């Protein structure tokens, strides 16, 4: 934008402007750089640049033992770290052929679902923040604090737990934890009505998110998008039901999908609303698990003294709050993994942003990015 004068006034060229969103920006949910080409306010191309948070997780895992990998895995998707550990533990257990006791299964489901609620609360709060509604963000964080307090009581950490180990969990429930969790679920279920009143059915919010950033189902499958993003496009696909792992077949819960209630199927409102409904369903699962869980049992019973899987390879995926989290583990018979690959759901979500955000305005890019719910720790590893 210099001070050069163009002396040729014959033809006026309208050039496309290249803007940089990030890497430091209040709205990009982490360090993500989007190189946006715009024609006025309309986007013509978006090129995401990632790698600002790359911490060489896969290389580290090739130098430490299987147990020592778990803190690294926590730090990949730092918002839902229970689900990360869950996926890893389930994969290694299948590779080694370990059967774990029922109590441990229930504990894992309870903490994973509580973490799913916490993660969705953050997603909902930040999409409100992107649109300009500051208050729902603080309400969501207030409720998230209560979940983090529960986790702190359980294992001492608020965000990165190192709790679910291969073959079991690290601690049993302390005295009084189950009662506190019941209290939380009783408190939380009516709160969803509060979020609905304030944000979900607010006319301005609907205008900002309905019909914006539509993701068709075939594009979603080709881009590998899964989780609430795929369910928002209308396909009822959930790994807890369709690719069963752990004891999810013992619980009754619905799988919400986007129906285009406020606009078209697969728009930002649908993805957002799927998350709101999923919180309700997770609360139901936690309640059922607490009711059904056996109170006696040793959580350390089947933790192997030394984790030394037999030579082999396995790929297993589990449902994290962002989609299907896959682990491809190659073992060569030693206690140190040969190769661990983490297939992250948010990686696929960011890759399709060029496809869905083209033709929309700059303000919509933030809303679309918010509705995809990405976390850079997982994308960059």
């Amino acid at each position, binding site marked *: 934008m210099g001070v050069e004068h163009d002396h040729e006034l014959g033809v006026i060229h309208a050039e496309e402007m290249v803007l940089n969103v990030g890497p430091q920006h209040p709205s990009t949910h982490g360090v993500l750089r989007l190189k946006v080409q715009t024609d006025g306010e309309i986007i013509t191309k978006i090129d995401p640049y990632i*790698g600002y948070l790359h911490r060489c997780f896969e*290389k580290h895992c090739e130098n430490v033992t299987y147990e020592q990998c778990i803190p690294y895995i926590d730090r990949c998707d730092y918002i839902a770290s229970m689900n990360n550990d869950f996926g890893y533990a389930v994969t290694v257990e299948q590779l080694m052929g370990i059967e774990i006791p029922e109590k441990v299964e229930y504990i894992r489901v309870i903490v994973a679902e509580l973490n799913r609620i916490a993660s969705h609360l953050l997603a909902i709060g930040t999409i409100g923040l992107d649109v300009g509604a500051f208050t729902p963000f603080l309400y969501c964080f207030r409720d998230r604090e209560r979940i983090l307090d529960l986790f702190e009581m359980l294992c001492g950490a608020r965000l990165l737990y190192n709790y679910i180990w291969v073959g079991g969990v690290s601690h049993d429930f302390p005295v009084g934890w189950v009662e506190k969790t019941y209290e939380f679920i009783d408190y939380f279920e009516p709160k969803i009505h509060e979020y609905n009143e304030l944000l979900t059915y607010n006319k301005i919010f609907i205008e900002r998110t309905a019909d914006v950033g539509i993701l068709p189902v075939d594009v979603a*499958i080709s*881009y*590998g998008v899964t989780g609430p993003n795929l369910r928002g496009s209308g396909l009822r696909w959930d790994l807890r039901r369709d690719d069963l792992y752990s004891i999810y077949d013992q619980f009754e819960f619905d799988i919400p999908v986007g129906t285009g209630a406020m606009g078209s199927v697969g728009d930002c409102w649908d993805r957002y609303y799927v998350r709101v409904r999923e919180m309700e369903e997770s609360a139901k699962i936690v309640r059922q698990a607490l009711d059904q869980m056996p109170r006696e049992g040793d959580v350390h019973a089947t933790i192997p003294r030394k984790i030394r899987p037999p030579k082999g390879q396995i790929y297993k995926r589990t449902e994290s709050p962002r989609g299907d989290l*896959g682990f491809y583990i190659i073992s060569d018979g030693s206690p140190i993994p040969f*190769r661990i690959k983490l297939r992250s759901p948010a*990686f696929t979500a960011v890759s399709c942003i060029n496809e869905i955000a083209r033709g929309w305005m700059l303000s919509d890019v933030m809303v679309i990015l918010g509705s995809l719910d990405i976390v850079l720790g997982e994308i960059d590893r």
Partner: protein
Amino acid sequence: MEFNKIIESINTDFKEGLLPIGEEAPTDHIQVSPEDWGELAGFLRENDSLKFDSLMCLTGIDEGTEEENLGVIYSLHSMIHRHKLEVRITVPKSRPVVPSVEQIWRIADWFEREIYDMFGITFEGHRDLRRILLPEDWEGYPLRKDYIFPESWHGIEVPKMKEGWE
């Protein structure tokens, strides 16, 4: 669909005798050469009874410092038929070239860029193959087993001693 039926289908409808059958043959994955892969990928996606429309994961491996091969592993899945397939391709370190499938499964665009970044395997036919996680001017392919960590980058030294860390 069962694994043997998938093998049968590929052997009959795509290319006769492409995959080995019998006692020696692997029971959970198929091994394909890079030359066949380009067309086989299209076939796996389009064929009605197979319909692998989802590439779940793309993993690169380095078979070891003594070995001379790199590998790529495709984990495929069909949303319609609910069956899975694992395809392994091995390429020599001297010429690591694999045909690109980014036009077939769009997620392969970024997955292949990541493998190029980490292993140095070039994907032929990829429209925009550049590094994705590391800076554009990085030298070396980190996830290879014989990777040597650099001493410094753009003037920033990599500290070797851990003094002062306790």
